[in-house]
Every structure is written in C-alpha cells, then in structure tokens.
C-alpha cells in the first residue's frame, strides 16, 4: 500500500511541477508543457506493446497459458496509453498546428497502431477455444508488432512530418538552466507513468489469475 501512496504523491508532484516549476519551452511555448504527459504515455504504449509481443513469443515457445494472459493484459494497457497519447497529441496539435486532426504522418501511424490492436481484440473474441485463441493471437501480435517500426519510425521519416521529435534531443544537448528544470520534470513524469503502468499491470495480472483459477474450479 505504501508504494501506491508514494506513487500518488509523486504523480501529484509531477502535475503541479509541470505547471509551476517547469518553464515554458523555447520552441513550443506554453503548449510545450504537454510533453510531460504526452511523451511518457507514448513511451509506455510502445513498451506495453513490446511486452505483449515478448509474452506472445514466450507463449509460442513454452505453451504456458499464463504468457497468453500477460500478452493480453499488456495489449490492453498499451491500448489505454496509446489512446492517452493520441488525445494529448490531438490537444497539442490543436494549439501548435491549428487542428485537432490533420493526418500528419505521426497521427496516421498512431491511428493505425490503435487499429492493429483493435483487430487483435477482434481476433481474440472470434475464437472460443482458449489454446487456439492463445496461439493464433500470439502469431498475430508478433506480426502486428513487426509493422510498428514501419509506422513509428519509417513512415514519419519518409513522409515529411511536423512532429517535434528533435525537441527532446535538443533538451539533452543544450544544458541551459531552464532546460534542466524541464528535463527534471520530464524524467520524473516518465518514472511516475512507468510506475503507474507496473501497478496497473500487477493488478490486472492478479485479477486475470483469479478469473483463471475460478474457471478451472468450475470445470472440475
């Protein structure tokens, strides 16, 4: 319980610091504050999708059903954080580019990412046999994750995107006092959101394990 309280205080601190302590960014102005929420959400989304793929590979190797549950939980959490990143991105886009949605390559890629995992859940719901569902959805998760590099890294490079990726790199390179304040808040936010992800994952895992045990007991 202490960890949850620490996490709650930590995240509250990050939220307050992002408006009070952190200065407005040089290139992006006041809108730059969203970096504290948007980038960690996107980072956790990619991390959770990566974990979904890793667990899917584990399942295909070892055929233990718990890996399938872990892959499912990670795909769900990844989708939640991906939706958060999409929404914060759209809000920022409204301020910086003038419209909530304008099919910038970065927005296209995140929309497709959401569609991929929506299709993953459709596939899961279409198969009733649990072993078959685990196997086929694991294959689909691996296939789907292989298209992620195309969407996240290649598409925005090949097609000109206005997304400010370099803003973060600049932040690390220029070490002005102002940027250092921003970097501290940003890294604190990354740590906090990562903690939030681990907590959610843990709860979901315990819950799914209980459901599984209950289903087993009913069968025998």
């Amino acid at each position: 319980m202490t960890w949850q309280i620490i996490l709650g205080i930590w995240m509250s601190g990050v939220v307050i610091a992002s408006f009070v302590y952190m200065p407005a960014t040089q290139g992006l102005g006041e809108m730059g504050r969203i970096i504290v929420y948007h980038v960690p959400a996107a980072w956790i989304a990619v991390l959770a999708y990566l974990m979904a793929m890793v667990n899917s590979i584990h399942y295909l190797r070892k055929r233990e059903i718990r890996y399938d549950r872990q892959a499912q939980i990670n795909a769900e959490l990844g989708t939640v954080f991906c939706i958060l990143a999409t929404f914060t991105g759209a809000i920022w886009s409204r301020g910086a580019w003038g419209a909530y949605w304008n099919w910038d390559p970065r927005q296209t890629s995140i929309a497709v990412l959401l569609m991929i995992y929506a299709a993953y859940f459709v596939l899961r719901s279409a198969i009733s046999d649990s072993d078959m569902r685990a196997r086929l959805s694991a294959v689909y998760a691996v296939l789907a994750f292989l298209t992620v590099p195309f969407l996240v890294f290649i598409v925005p490079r090949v097609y000109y995107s206005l997304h400010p990726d370099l803003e973060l790199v600049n932040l690390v390179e220029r070490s002005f006092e102002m940027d250092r304040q921003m970097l501290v808040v940003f890294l604190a936010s990354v740590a906090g959101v990562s903690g939030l992800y681990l907590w959610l994952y843990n709860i979901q895992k315990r819950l799914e394990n209980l459901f599984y045990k209950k289903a087993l007991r009913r069968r025998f």
Partner: protein
Amino acid sequence: MATSSFPWLSRSLAVLRKDLRIEFRTRYAYSALLMFAITTLVTVSFSVGGFMSGPEMTDIAAALLWIILFFSAMAGLSRTFVQEEESGTVIALKMAAEPEPVYIGKYLFNVVLLFSLTVLVVPLFVVMLNLSVVLVGGFLATVFLGAMGLAGASTILAAIVAKAGAKGSLMTVLSFPILLPLMLGAISATRTALGGGPPGAINADLLMLFFYNGVALAASLLLFEYVWNE
C-alpha cells in the same frame, strides 16, 4: 523429390502445382477476385470517372486503385486455406510436407492469383479512368511490389482466419491494419507515377515497399509453423 538439392523448393512447387490444378478445375477463387474487382471498378468508373480532372486527380485515382486491389484480394486470398479446411485435406497436406514448403507454395499461389488479377484490372483501370501513366517503369514496379506485398502479408492471415473458423469479415479486419503501411507506400508511389509530384519521390516509396515485402515474408515464414501445427 527428396533427392533434390533444394527439398523446400521442389515441395513448395508441388504445393503450388496442386493448388493451381484445383483452382483451374473450380476457378472459384479467381472468379471471386475478378468479379469483385470488376464490380468495384465499374462502380468507380461510373460514379467518379467523369470528374477525374484537375491536379487532385492523381491522388484520388491512386487511392481508388489500391482500394479496389485490396478489397478484391481480401475476397479471394483467404480461399487457399479455407478450402483445405472445408474439404478436410488439411491433415493430408500436413503429412505430405513441412510447414515452410506449404507456406511458400500457398504464398506463390496467392502471388500468381494476384498477378493474374492485376494484369487484367490495372490496364482496365487506366483505360476506364482516362489516366496517363507518366513513369511507366515506376508504375509497373509499384503494382508488382504492391501485389507481392498483399499476397505476402495476407497468406499467413488467411491461415489464421481458416483456423479461426473462417468468420466472414475477419480476414478484412485482420489484414487492413497490417497491410496499411504497404497501402500508404503503394498509394504514394502510384500518385507519383501518375504524374503528381516530383518523379524522384517514388524511390523512397519503392524502397519501403521492398522492405515491407522482405519483413512480411520472413516473419510469416518463421511464424507459419505455429499457425499450421496444432
């Protein structure tokens, strides 16, 4: 055949020959593909053919071409594995060859199927919409790589759908997001080839299509075993 120095190749070709023979006898998959493509093509030409002028014309034409090809492919490509499940020949095929030759054979069959569709539909599309192809080589390369990529990624998905009980719309739902990077690249390349934008821009798109093909094929080859074996 076991004495061949490339056992996979000869077995894959055997699977391809078997599928081509079945297809030649029934002509079910090809008819489904072709009728779907012709129907959508006629609808497109009838409804927007008269408005295809101006600078945005190439953008619209490129998107329409790949929408037609994508949905026709979805109508026919899942057939290869569904037919094996329906006729109960899956077990015989599993005993006859390893998963990889089966995959390669089915993939080659889908490539042949899509190529024989595109040689008919793409010229018809160009004629019916009064398009002028500026970069002929680039256009052919785009259609070639695009059709290969459609077949490459959807073959393993067809196997998944067949195992999942061949539920009607599942094939389209599963393949759309996976094929979207390919579609985006192909649409962009087609637009350039039809004269929209600088000709040099087509190279990056073709490179992306090429790598997509490679990734799709390698991943499917590695993963197919898990779909195929119970």
